[in-house]
């Protein structure tokens, strides 16, 4: 377990930088992590982050496919908002665990 300081708050993360305690997350923290990834968060980013956090809290699996069902954006826009590996980046910024497929 590692601890990192974001926006004046100390949070617990794993070796890849993903939150181990999603309740420590705040919007300010998200903005700082996003900056490290070279992303400036907009309302659209926050909307999808909230969608991801809600799904995680409900114990539902996260996948690229599920973004199309978010009613917020489609997958192509998701790639534009979080370039490269959108699901990995978005979950890191959203302060939830990295999605792992269950085989």
């Amino acid at each position, binding site marked *: 377990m590692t601890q990192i300081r974001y926006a004046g708050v100390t949070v617990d993360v794993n070796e890849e930088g993903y939150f181990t305690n999603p309740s420590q997350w705040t919007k300010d923290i998200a903005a700082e992590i996003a900056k490290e990834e070279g992303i400036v968060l907009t309302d659209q980013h926050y909307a999808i982050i909230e969608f991801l956090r809600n799904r995680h809290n409900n114990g539902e699996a996260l996948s690229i496919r599920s973004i199309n069902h978010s009613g917020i954006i489609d997958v192509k826009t998701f790639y534009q908002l979080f370039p490269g590996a959108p699901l990995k980046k978005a979950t890191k910024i959203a302060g939830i665990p990295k999605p792992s497929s269950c*085989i």
Partner: protein
Amino acid sequence: MKRIVILGAGTAGIMMANKLNKHLAGSGFELSIIEKEDTHYYQPGFLFLPFGHYKKKDIAKPVNKLITKGAELIKKEADRIDAEGNKVLFKDGSSISYDILIIATGARIVPEDTPGLKGELWYKKIFDFYTIEGATALAEFFETWEGGHLVVNVADNPIKCPVAPIEFCFYVLDCCRKRGKGNKMKITYVTPLSGAFTKPKASKILGSLLEENGIELVTDFFLGEVDNENMKIRDFGGREVDFDCLVTIPLHSGDPVISKSGLGDEFGFAKADKHTLQSLLFKNIFVIGDAGNYPASKAGSVAHFQAEVLEKNILSFIKNEPLKESFDGHSNCFIETGRGKGILIDFNYDTEPLPGTFPIPVLGPMKLLKESRINHWGKLAFKWIYWKILLPGRKLPISTHMSMAGKKTD
């Protein structure tokens, strides 16, 4: 008389019917199983079909021959479930009421959900091997194909039998060696995962096996569209991979009946408790096998271990007792790695596949997470086990819950 209805006579449905048949006498329950198809396929055999190891007739049996005496087989197509009214409605307008419903409708591929996948090259240069039609078309194609760049692509998870695409790659190499086409073939495995497989230890071992065999690995690739004209697959971010032949594992969904009945998640997999297998919405509905939105493999072994749990829980439910049995996510599968060898993995919701021996510590005889010939023989013997032990609902000498015996942890 009260009635238990099983919806679907795939692997899970048939196993459940044959297990419950044993308890019907004097129970006050009758049992019906609904299936629209006449033929049941041994789905693990689809992997062998494209290489001519099996023909269609080797893996097909009539559904009515597989259900033991007791359950009534209804050959009809379900339209939706009226869960409030405890009824299954059929496409022909008739219906059947139930006291207990077991959903065993499985998972299906939906290539039509990816733009271009079912385009002009479908079954000409683009094939699936998850259906009898796809596997048969691919077998015909392979007979005359001279080789080139073969791309094996998983569109996105969840998919049935998550190891099958990797096994497929190893089989292509074996087949090329035998047919003398090895030097004309380049294989690329394109996956949405960040490695060869999901769980770290298995991913590392399978990753090195791909490398040793010269199979290129492209990761984090979520299939966005197929460009038929230029013969490329493209991910949502615009990354491209060229192909001469594309073997696709398309997106999967649950049966349309589930979504239509309001019982599923956004992909049409029925929502149910991952331990008791009881629907989260209606207490007299249970879900088994690939039809469920469980965080477990969509695989026959999972359905088998679930069937043992569900048999007990249904009996408790009938007696108005709490559901005592809990499914732990146990999965067990052979992974063919070519040249007559195979790997065996055994895991559950909480424990990733580990090295060791199976089912007996030290003695094995199966080796976990390691290539061996006996694992390959185990895979071949499995077809007999499937027809003679699993489907008839007999017990295998493997425990329902995953055991740590024989497994090596760090």
